[in-house]
């Protein structure tokens, strides 16, 4: 089992990112609304996922406002799919 992905908040983050078409990035506040996290909590979990190579963050400015966007990496997509398969295997008694 992938302990990094399986943590409940990180699992939600990965599921939310995986649902975006074509590997698009999502802005931090929007991701926060989707997974219903606080700023600090979300930031910490994204840092963990980034260290593992599962997500990548991009920081830039939109006008004068700083913007952080998060996208899933190909490695993250593969590991997430593997983890979901692992969960299905447990449910179906194959795990």
């Amino acid at each position: 089992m992938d302990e990094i992905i399986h943590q409940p908040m990180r699992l939600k983050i990965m599921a939310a990112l995986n649902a975006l078409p074509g590997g698009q990035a999502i802005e931090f506040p929007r991701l926060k609304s989707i997974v219903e996290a606080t700023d600090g909590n979300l930031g910490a979990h994204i840092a963990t996922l980034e260290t593992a190579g599962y997500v990548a963050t991009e920081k830039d400015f939109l006008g004068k406002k700083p913007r952080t966007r998060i996208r899933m990496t190909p490695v993250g997509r593969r590991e997430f799919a593997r983890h979901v398969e692992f969960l299905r295997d447990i449910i179906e008694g194959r795990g």
Partner: protein
Amino acid sequence: MSLTPDQAVEALRDVERARSRSIAFYSYRVSSPQVIMWGIFWFIGYGASDLMPTKGGPIWGAIGVAWFILSFLFSRRSTQKAAAGNKGQAWRFLVIYLTFTVFIFSTVAIMRPRGAEMGAFVPMLVAAMYTILGLWTGWRYSAIGVGIAVLTMGGYFFLPAHFLLWMAFVGGGALTLTGLWLRGA
């Protein structure tokens, strides 16, 4: 660490919930320019129809063409952003547009609504589409659908003398604000 089947079910439920919310929020963001555009078109179309009642046909014809071109461009832009994952979207949009155009023209040819009747018919169709779409994609679409229906029916039955103006200002304004509401989701 090992998991029980119940824990795995709970984890997959979380995955599904996050996936649905992510799709809904993405969809809100992508569709918000279209909803704002509709608000502006309604304002122009209903306002101009009120000022020039005999020119309703050409006014809405021109708006239909403008809507098609802009919607196609919006659709292509979102397709390009989504890269390979969404290549069929522009064609799907074309088919949807043609389907509704044929449906509206056929229904109008059969039932021959005039003036306010025609002005209420298309918004009610749009309201039904949004309400149904919301059941699959996100509750905000259903809220838009119900809102359009209530405003349209309210104007049609309670303000028949000023229905077109009502739709221009209240309907167009409400759609524009709704588009901004979707963008902020």
